């Protein structure tokens, strides 16, 4: 759950999508990232390097700073200290080439199709692309229905389709399958997997250990606003190095 809304204190200058530079956005390099708010520190000393391809899963107990880290990487929040470098670009200049799917989908008060048209129009997309995206997420038959009448799973699939309509180089997903039924989870994992196979860099926040096992290439484990561990999924799940990650995977309470 997003536990921090953008406030005046952390509001960033407005950016335009135009004149996006060419060249890959990855690798990502995060150094000494810190975010303070009046009531305390949410993230501190986060160092991270992500390779060009694959699916990174960010895990950790509630309040560990997962959603905050995602927003800092996406350029929605400004750090108090430290830097985010997308292959040399600051986070705020990379936002236009990325997309974020929020835990609670934010859908416009329009039809399902019009929600996609909204982003496709600005990017020169056409009706065929819209129909293909809707078919891909299993919503073609609901194109004319009001987006706000969709079920939770359908709404999240539409939000995912809208994110993919922007052809992002990096796709952030903030617990997109929280409280969804298994069928919707399966559809979302399939679509995310296909996007990843096409070369979209995936950064996925989840609490679901089973899901993380299925989709992760590498895992970043956050604890109390710090990176407790960052390792390949093949190493993390059988043998986590940090005590917090071991407790978390074992189902013990991690505070």
């Amino acid at each position, binding site marked *: 759950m*997003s536990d921090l*809304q*953008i406030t*005046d204190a952390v*509001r*960033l200058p*407005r*950016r*335009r*999508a135009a004149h996006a530079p060419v060249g890959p956005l990855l690798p990502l390099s995060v150094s000494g990232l810190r975010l303070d708010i009046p009531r305390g520190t949410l993230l501190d000393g986060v160092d991270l390097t992500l390779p060009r391809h694959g699916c990174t899963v960010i895990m950790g107990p509630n309040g560990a700073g997962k959603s905050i880290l995602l*927003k800092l990487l*996406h350029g*929605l929040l400004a750090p108090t200290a430290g830097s985010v470098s997308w292959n040399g670009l600051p986070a705020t200049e990379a*936002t*236009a080439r*990325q*997309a*974020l799917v*929020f835990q609670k989908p*934010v859908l*416009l*008060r*329009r*039809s*399902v*199709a*019009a929600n996609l*048209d*909204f*982003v*496709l*129009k*600005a990017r020169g*997309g*056409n*009706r065929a*692309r*819209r129909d293909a995206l809707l078919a891909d997420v299993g919503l073609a038959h609901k*194109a*004319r*229905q*009001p987006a706000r*009448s969709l079920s939770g799973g359908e709404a999240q699939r539409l939000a995912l389709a809208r994110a993919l309509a*922007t052809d992002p180089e990096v796709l952030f997903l903030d617990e997109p399958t929280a409280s969804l039924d298994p069928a919707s989870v399966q559809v979302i994992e399939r679509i995310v997997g296909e996007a990843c196979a096409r070369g979209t860099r995936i950064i996925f926040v989840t609490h679901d250990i089973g899901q993380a096992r299925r989709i992760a290439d590498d895992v970043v484990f956050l604890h109390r606003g710090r990176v407790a561990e960052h390792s390949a999924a093949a190493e993390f799940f059988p043998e986590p190095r940090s005590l917090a990650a071991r407790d978390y995977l074992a189902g013990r309470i991690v505070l």
Partner: protein
Amino acid sequence: MQDIGEAFHLALSLVLSGDADLFEIVGLSLQVSLSATLIACAIGLPVGALLAVSRFRGRGAVLVLINALMGLPPVVVGLLVYLYLSRSGPLGFLGLLYTPGAMIVAQTILIVPIVAALSRQVLEDLHGEYAEQFRSLCLTRWQSITTLLWDGRYALMTVGLAGFGRAAAEVGAVIIVGGNIDHLTRVMTTAIALETSKGDLPLALALGIVLLVIALGVNAGVQMLRMSAARQASYGAAANV
């Protein structure tokens, strides 16, 4: 009680007989108030939307000012417009004084703050919901404003109705800048004021009843339009790319 019964009877007979004077007054009232509402919406809605999405030094003071202007006394507005439009005033060359145009100007000034303040509140709530998504999509301020105005259009119809209600019920400003001239600037409210001052209470009450029925009709019409448009937008043809 006798007056009220007589007023109902007179109102009915005026309407049913197709009284030309009555319909002229009603027509001018609608023309003036609807024109003022449309112009005020054209000005006030973008201003409200801009205030909803903008953060700047002194924004709080601007909001207080706009909210305060919702309570502008009509006679003060009428007096100011009169001074500007009178022959010796800076806009006297327009020759608008004692015309429906002057009445539209006065009513527009009265209801722009209402439309701007109420739409700002409606759109700020909506923006609170959309803000992070807008930032993620890198929308420009203009794109954010147009999106908010479109998505908030049904709630904004109620804002427009509030403006229309204020305009249609207003008498102080239009009587100063319009002059209540028969067959030229006489509207429902000024006619009611005139008939009351003449002691013709049944006719004044009859006009009041007609005014209420018109206000009710306009509100009902907008409500039906709103419901129909909402259904259309929700289930109708999706916008083509």
